């Protein structure tokens, strides 16, 4: 669908479409997506990946290797597990130092986007920084 608005006296045209509850907009050479259900201010789904004390699946795919055990002490940047999607391997790393508190996946598991895979109990003093 083509839409047009007038802003400060100038016309702006865009191509838009709702695909599975996400609104896609192509305007001036850029495509962006926002949640179609929520208010317009809220832009796209929260970034998955390694975020603070939880490791999320950044994509749908298969868990093919887990390097850590429950209760194991880990360093910031240490490899936690390997996922495979579209024939490529992705290593997910810890964003903070701590102890493995929870492992919510097994090797060979097919997981969906955003699934919590591993939870880390941060060492005191290690600050959790949220990712993008």
């Amino acid at each position, binding site marked *: 669908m083509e839409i047009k608005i007038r802003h400060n006296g100038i016309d*702006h045209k865009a191509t838009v479409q709702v695909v599975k509850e996400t609104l*896609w907009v192509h305007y001036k050479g850029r495509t962006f997506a926002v949640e179609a259900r929520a208010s*317009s201010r809220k832009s796209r789904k929260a970034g998955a990946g390694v975020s603070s004390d939880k490791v999320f699946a950044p994509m749908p795919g298969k868990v093919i290797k887990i390097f850590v055990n429950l209760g194991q002490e880990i360093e910031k940047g240490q*490899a936690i597990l390997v996922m495979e999607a579209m024939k490529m391997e992705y290593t997910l790393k810890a964003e903070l130092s701590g102890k493995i508190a929870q492992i919510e996946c097994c090797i060979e598991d097919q997981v969906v986007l955003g699934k919590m895979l591993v939870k880390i109990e941060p060492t005191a003093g290690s600050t959790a920084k949220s990712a993008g």
Partner: protein
Amino acid sequence: MKKFKRIAIANRGEVAVRIIRACEEMGIETVLLHSDADINTRAYRIATKTICIGSAETTKSYLNIPANIEGALASGAEAIHPGFGFLSENADFADACDKAGIIFIGPSAKTIRELGDKVHCRELAKKAGLPLVPGYEGENQEVSHMLKEAENIGLPVIVKAAAGGGGRGMKLVSSMKEARELIESAQREALSSFGSSKVFIEKYLDHAKHIEFQIFGDSTGQVIHYFDRECSVQRRHQKIIEEATSPSLTDELRRQMGEAAVAIAQLGKYKGAGTVEFLLQDGKFYLLEVNTRLQVEHPVTEMVMGVDLVKAQILTAQGEFVFNSHQLRIPHGHSIECRIYAENPYLGGVPSTGKLGKVEWPEGPGRRYECGFDEGDEITPYYDSMIAKVIVWDESRSRAIQKMVYVLKDSVIFGVQTNIPYLIKILNHSEFVNGTMTTRFVETYFKDPIVLPELSEVEKRLVEKALQQSRGGLVGISPWQSFWRGI
């Protein structure tokens, strides 16, 4: 000399479409040998016939030799085009085709073994006196032994799949600490992508350019080259942007490398389309590998040389392709290809899957789109994330870059995130514009995910308007509904 009536395609996505289009023009019927996950793709819709050969997992379908052979036989196809990736460089598959009485469109199984297997190829090149990157290509694949060899060569080294290509199963090792895990990972990826876990190690040249020559052997055994491409823009050893010809070669270098490429192809009795890859560093070139198949980036060569490599492959397989010795082969203008990956550029390129919404490519002179999917198709997590290729041609490199940036901005792909914003940033980078980029260009300047820009005031207003209109269309009673009710 026998004209084919029907060709089977042992591949998927945009390359399957490319092959089907060539066959259509030549009056040849096509049979798509596909997995059950690929029903909603363009190749499935346009092929004359389709045969499902297995489930989504590549080992059960696209890498399954008996299933592909059975499918081709059942459909009555006389030849198989393997495309690129999957079984395209698998000598056992070429043998199996032979045995079943089907023509494999590509070089002979023997040639694939000699040149295609990276390890054999290096041995052959050594005999021919071609310059090689130092490395280990032995049979002993024990990780502990590989670690020792890596140490001998000296870090950084690169681990590659012996039967590989396209960046699969390729790992850069820069410290011994991570070496074991990376070698094991390379072996796993090699096994799942190429059916063999065999890998080899090579010294990593840290400011080299990737230059390759398109070679072709006709039906009479004559081998020539169709000049060069540069593919230095790579991420995780996977090409992103390719161009023909390379902005980095002097006439003399181009002549020497072209001769070396033809020499090794002749040594392997090459028939059909192939590529000889080189690394170029400090004015010296080294043989990297020979790919015994069509390349993903073959369109840029087609654009500057005015050839159709897929048709030439089919004609060669039919035994009727002979070079015209009176025809001058000179590259004309400049061509660039961008690979469109379904991935999220704001999350470091993690795959983005889902149902495709609107897909629109802006038409115009010197633009070419190779696309495997249309609106409503599903991008699944089972296969490579490359969903399309955008190719442009213009008179000079700078104009081609300008055209590519415009065309990418004007293309619409809804439903999945793509690397288009990332490509535009690369195309605008001074090192790319100057043509001085090396294979480390991406990791040097584009290591981090690009930042998602905040929505501008205008964009927010557009979102509001779009949501209003789409809600109106969904819950409100449209004039059409009441019109039909009235009948």
